[in-house]
């Protein structure tokens, strides 16, 4: 293409060739992960401080959470392998694994909702006790971040479908975000399951 067309194209895409776009997007994702880390860290601190209170009761976690965690982990692995396949010039494999990664995240959300339904059927509601309130709140917050990831994944599927190799960086970013969501979920799951009021009191030094 001629110089002015290149200029227009460059300007339209922020004026940089694709590999700088990849690194810019990479930095942008790290920054966003920093923001989300700040968010979830604050939620964790709020949880510990609130579960300190005398009215806090640990709630039994529904078994569905183990299923959803497994699904999220599988999704992470799938996307990681998809990124590798895309770079290794195996487009068909890359596409299949890309789909799998997204579907696993979707299934994760469905199973989380199932877990909610399981809890509400045992009369555990948000207003009941702080443990329950935090359960719904933390799973909802994490779920919203998964949904955001799915939006980015959908765009990646659209952009990477014709030529996964050229868009391998996009798939890699999805994988990175999926690993992040898995790590956050791990922390939240451990928090809800093992930081009981007794542990919270021990942390805060409450007698």
């Amino acid at each position: 293409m001629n110089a002015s067309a290149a200029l227009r194209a460059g300007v339209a895409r922020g004026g940089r060739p694709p590999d700088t776009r990849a690194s810019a997007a990479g930095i942008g994702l790290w920054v966003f992960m920093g923001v989300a880390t700040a968010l979830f860290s604050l939620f964790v601190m709020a949880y510990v401080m609130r579960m300190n209170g005398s009215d806090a009761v640990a709630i039994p976690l529904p078994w569905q959470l183990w299923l959803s965690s497994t699904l999220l982990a599988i999704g992470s692995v799938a996307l990681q392998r998809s990124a590798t396949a895309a770079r290794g010039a195996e487009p068909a494999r890359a596409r299949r694994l890309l789909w799998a990664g997204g579907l696993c995240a979707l299934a994760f959300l469905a199973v989380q909702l199932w877990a909610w339904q399981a809890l509400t059927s045992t009369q555990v509601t948000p207003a009941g006790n702080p443990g329950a309130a935090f359960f719904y709140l933390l799973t909802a917050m994490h779920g919203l971040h998964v949904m955001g990831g799915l939006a980015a994944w959908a765009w990646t599927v659209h952009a990477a479908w014709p030529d996964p190799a050229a868009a391998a960086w996009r798939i890699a970013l999805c994988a990175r975000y999926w690993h992040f969501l898995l790590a956050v979920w791990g922390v939240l799951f451990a928090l809800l399951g093992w930081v009981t009021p007794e542990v919270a009191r021990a942390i805060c030094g409450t007698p």
Partner: protein
Amino acid sequence: MKPATKKFLTHYVWSQDHKVIAIQYACTAIAVGLVGVVLSNLMRLQLGFPGQFEFINAERYYQFVTMHGMIMVIYLLTALFLGGFGNYLIPLMVGARDMVFPYLNMLSFWVYLLSVVVLMASFFVEGGPTGAGWTLYPPQSILPGTPGHAGGIVLMLVSLVIFIVATTMGGLNYVTTVLQARCEGMTLLRMPLTVWGIFVATILALLGFPALFVSGVMLLLDRTLGTSFFMPALVSMGQASGYKGGSPLLFQHLFWFFGHPEVYIVALPAFGIVSDLISVHARKSIFGYRMMVWAIVAIGGLSVVVWAHHMFVSGMNPYFGFFFATTTLIIAVPTAIKVYNWVLTLWHGDIHLSVPMLFALAFVCTFAIGGLTGLFLGNVSVDIPLSGTYFVVAHFHMVMGVAPLLVVFGGIYHWFPKITGRMLDDRIGKIHFWITFLGTYAIYFPMHYLGVLGMPRRYYSFEGYQFIPASAFSLNTFITVVALVVGAAQLLFVFNLAWSAWRGRPATANPWRAASLEWQTPTTPPGHGNWGPQLPVVYRWAYAYGVPGQGEDYIAQNAPPEAGGLEPEARGRSEGEARGAPA
């Protein structure tokens, strides 16, 4: 759709050009700021002429107070400094064609606009907007007895959540652009202080707004689902509530963990901008540039460990007071360094008293007051009788309302010629300046003394309190009259903006003869893509003023290396090596 209409929409409405987005942010922020000024004038009518205006009853008074505060801090100052100045200046000052994520940038403006619409909608729901004070403390913010506890508070919290999404989208852009898209030769330590101020402020925003999000969402759930994150067992208006076990202090810790960095999110861009204003209009490099950068970074870092100085009398663990008083007074040191460096820049300078310089000097004067009164409030035992009084109101208005706002005006007068290709009218500018500077000083300086007297803040009326002398009521009336005049004078500014954009005196490309990169664009106003076919290459810092042995008293950042004017740390090396590392 007609092609002309489509073109208009793409260029000026759904634009992904950072300059258009910046103007969209600025216009929205200024419009909403004018609403904030009107609200403050309504409050002052009640304070200056108590009981004379029947429609300003106690409920409405508290609604005005709350909406005024939230609008000014969040929807005006934060949006204007980051979304307005940040969007316009960062790509131009670092030599980029645009922000790195232009589509996300466009979205951030529309999401911000949505948050403003939701906020304004709270005026129209039953019960009106929330009257809980901008700090929205539970339990009262969601209980009867506080105006807007039904719908108003919900819309406020939803609006804040939406705003936080917008700020995050914008913030990702500003940070990544500074890290990633600087042109060749533009090292971090060659960026103007305006960029440093906005850059560090953005990092604070990205890490601090999540705390507001957490507290806001949890308060929303307490209000809508009856959870008890912040609500202890309580009896409201004689009715036992269903809440129990929650902690109001937890809200305060979360809120101020955001709230204190927030004031630096407003102040740091102002610090950066005023450094550039003083430097350009005194024709002298900012004194101690690298120390200024470190001071900005240090202030940003320290700002996350001082929050509980807003909570000295909150009933929190009293031993926290020692820690937070100490950190708060430590943060005064880098802040003082900045003040010294601003005034030392004037020393042996060549000072032009243009309108931007007038605003910059007024900033130094008013920020000195605001910053120094902060030392009273940060010192825990001095704070105890002053907390919750007009001393606090005077302090935060001086340091956050007056001083940064003077920088906003100065910055707009300074960069207007670049943005529009025309100069703002100088005479109107000077009238606007004098009324604003002298007026705000006359409003807030005496107000400190009312606080020392013990006059409490957030009082609709002081009727019947014997310890308050009649002279204090007279002072309140005086302050109200001045406030009304200052409020009206802002219309001069708005008029100047509108009229000059259309009919102002045409400006040259670099009317202030500034060295930084944004003034070196091939066209004025800069075209789409900013730099024409070739990105600039930078050979020196942004402050090459008064370099001896040169014809002009400044050297542009992208002037050829032979022109000299290197930053101090590069001067030891030879010419050939001193070009600086590529971005």
